[in-house]
């Protein structure tokens, strides 16, 4: 384990968040959390999805206002009324997807909004470029300030973002999963850069799901769970296993429906699916009435594989069998025809069709059954739509209503009704309960259990551990585009899942 050895214990934090609470209508996103960032040190913020990490970043960068608690800069309480206030206080964030302008030069990107001016009030291009060049030299960037941003790769764009942070004389740099899209070599370069920033006395907040990274570059850790503070301390004083336990240990158990776990014959068999850049060697079987969970970190290749299985993207290799018959699925239409449907994650973008009324949204993939001689039978359509919207307990004034006027939960019911109406054998649910409230979650879970009981086979992609454990008959864990483990229901524990997903070896007694 490598980390800077001597850490002064009595330094005042640059930023100190104390008893911070943030509520949204109906949800408490952060509940009295604390987070301290020290000059010249890297603090890793650790937590599952939904632990409150993004909310914290948004509070620190002035995007969200807090509902309680104090933020102190150098010990003095401050309030951030706008992102500008946070920037003026020297806090800057480097996001997973960099927020930069492709069509501008590197120097323009670094100095946009605070470019040096000449005596006429115009941008002093020469000075801007020379300043930018010295910043780039400081961080060892291998490109010129005149380069157009779109010519740079993601790693180099990160460098530009960092140079921008330095140009405003940031004291606190927030890195939100900066390595998610980087190659191995680029990650090493990023680590070097983090060391440079540390040497300059910047306080760094590092958000990552990857334990090897955290133990490689962080000096301190802070753990959040379900919007609450769990603990913090020095990385040197904690083991990977203890950190996993702090991260996943649950105070409140969610209630999941009782399931009989009766699975039948094999319905779908996937053999050797591969893609040049996204995934390889994906093979598994799915049985009738089974709920198969797919767990993994964001970016492990789960959705990408499912899109290939559904025919949206083309795999380079691999076949699947439905009920023993070989099927070549190369378009979503063929997938639907073969009884496979996919309820995507981003339902706003990929689910409901705003502009079509509810009943037409429901019948869209089933129009072959509701038409006769090429003409649609509206009465048949209504019948089909009514049948499935009743099954899902859809709350709508009329099925003729515009879907845009429904609540999020009801829109989701419409999307699911749409797929059930095609009478599928396999339903792929991508993050089925992401972003919906607890009550609706329970309804979705009950409904999934009901579907499975009726003999439908469900593939559930989820990043929420309780959901994976509470619902699945079997779980496949993916990591870096490969299947990392296949676990039967009896072996499902939060620790096992996180370990396989993050690639941490099994615990050995007495490991520190």
């Amino acid at each position, binding site marked *: 384990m490598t980390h800077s050895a001597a850490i002064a214990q009595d330094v005042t934090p640059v930023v100190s968040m104390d008893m911070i609470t943030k509520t949204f209508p109906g949800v408490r996103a952060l509940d009295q959390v604390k987070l301290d960032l020290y000059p010249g040190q890297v603090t890793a913020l650790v937590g599952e999805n939904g632990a409150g990490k993004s909310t914290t970043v948004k509070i620190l960068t002035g995007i969200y206002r807090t509902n309680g608690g104090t933020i102190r800069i150098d010990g003095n309480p401050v309030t951030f009324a706008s992102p500008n206030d946070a920037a003026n206080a020297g806090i800057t964030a480097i996001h997973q997807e960099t927020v930069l302008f492709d069509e501008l030069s590197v120097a323009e990107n670094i100095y946009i909004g605070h470019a040096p001016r000449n005596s006429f009030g115009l941008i002093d291009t020469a000075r801007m470029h020379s300043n930018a060049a010295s910043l780039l030299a400081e961080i060892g960037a291998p490109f010129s300030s005149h380069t157009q941003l779109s010519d740079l790769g993601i790693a180099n764009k990160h460098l530009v973002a960092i140079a921008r942070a330095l140009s405003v004389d940031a004291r606190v740099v927030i890195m939100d999963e900066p390595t998610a899209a980087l190659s191995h070599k680029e990650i090493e370069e990023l680590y070097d850069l983090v060391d440079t920033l540390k040497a300059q006395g910047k306080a760094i907040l590092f958000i990552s799901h990857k334990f090897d990274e955290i133990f490689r570059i962080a000096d301190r850790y802070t753990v959040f769970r379900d919007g609450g503070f769990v603990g913090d301390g020095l990385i040197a004083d904690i083991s990977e296993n203890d950190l996993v336990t702090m991260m996943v240990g649950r105070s409140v158990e969610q209630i999941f429906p009782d399931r009989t776990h009766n699975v039948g014959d094999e319905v779908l068999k996937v053999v050797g699916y591969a893609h040049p850049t996204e995934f390889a060697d994906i093979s598994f079987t799915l049985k009738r009435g089974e709920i198969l969970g797919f767990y993994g970190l964001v970016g492990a290749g789960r959705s990408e594989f499912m899109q290939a299985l559904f025919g949206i993207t083309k795999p380079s290799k691999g076949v699947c069998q439905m009920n023993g018959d070989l099927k070549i699925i190369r378009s979503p239409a063929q997938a639907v025809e073969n009884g496979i449907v996919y309820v995507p994650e981003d339902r706003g973008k990929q689910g*409901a069709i705003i502009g079509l009324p509810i009943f037409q949204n429901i019948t*869209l*993939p089933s129009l072959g059954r509701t038409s006769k001689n090429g003409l649609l039978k509206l009465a048949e359509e209504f019948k089909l739509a009514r049948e499935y919207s009743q099954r899902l307990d859809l709350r709508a004034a009329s099925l003729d209503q515009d879907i845009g006027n429904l609540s999020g939960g009801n829109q989701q019911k419409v999307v699911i009704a749409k797929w059930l109406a095609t009478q599928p054998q396999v339903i792929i649910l991508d993050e089925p309960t992401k972003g919906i409230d607890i009550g609706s979650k329970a309804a979705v879970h009950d409904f999934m259990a009901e579907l499975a009981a009726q003999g439908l086979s469900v593939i559930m992609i989820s990043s929420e551990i309780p959901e994976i454990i509470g619902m699945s008959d079997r779980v496949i864990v993916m990591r870096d585009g490969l299947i990392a483990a296949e676990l039967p229901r009896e072996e499902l524990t939060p620790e096992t899942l996180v370990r396989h997903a993050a690639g941490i070896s099994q615990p050995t007694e007495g490991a520190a």
Partner: protein
Amino acid sequence: MKRFIPLREAILSAAILFLTLLVASRFPGFVAPANLANVFNDTAPLIILALGQMVVILTRCIDLSVAANLALTGMVVAMINVAIPGLPIPIILTIAVLMGAFMGAINGILVWKLSIPPIVVTLGTMTIFRGIIFLISDGKWVNSHEMSPAFTGFPRTVLLGLPALSWIAILTVVAFGIMMARTQFGRSIFAVGGNPHAAVYTGINVGKTQFWAFVVSGALAGLTGYLWVARYAVAYVDIAGGFELEVVAACVIGGISIAGGIGTVGGAVLGAIFLGVVKNALPVVDISPFWQLAISGSAILIAVAFNARSGRNKGRVILKSAEATQ
């Protein structure tokens, strides 16, 4: 729940009625049935083209080549008529429709297979089609005395009190009404424009749907090409120059969302009729052509502002009390 689209059509109908009555108050002859039929007949090409354009715009594309397609097809059928005067009209019509559809297919292929933005594709083909007319005609006109009487007579043939041109427009409206409301193709068009990502997951091929939209638009442009040349009994390079913008304007005024996915056959037809009435009514009451342009332009802006207002995100319903009133 408020039903929004019929409201828009009601407003447009009211505007058309208001304009008609305004003119009638000074010139009562304008509302004589014969004159109204004339106005409709005069607007028929715009109605037909607006319906084709509507389908294209609904799929988030635009077809700027319709007028050039019309002119090229018109020139070709006129030259065919000069060469083979005895060719029956049904064959002429078939040639016109197929040729127009072929040109639409070229647009569609470029948009579908090469993913070139539709505005660029059709701007290019618009220029190319006009260029081809010049090449095949040597820049010469085909005049009425060269065309056969059957060729020029067809659009004027009166059936049940209306000329064939009007009947073709009416049949097109009916066919499109059925196509948009009652066929899978019509439904796919709305799906592709309303949410292309979701359409993909539903098993709809977005590019292919756009391709067929261009074919439909092209076929109607070809059909109109013959009708136009026959009606005015002349074919030359620049016929219907700039008419594509009038067609797009008719769609926009009729509430077809330029962002795709929203629009009705009734809206497109009313938009076209509105422009037709403006064009025919204002000269009657001695308003200068410049005012006509200003009125058409204002109508477009008002229509777009109206669409933008209605399309504005209403936000989430969080209050229980608000939900109850929905």
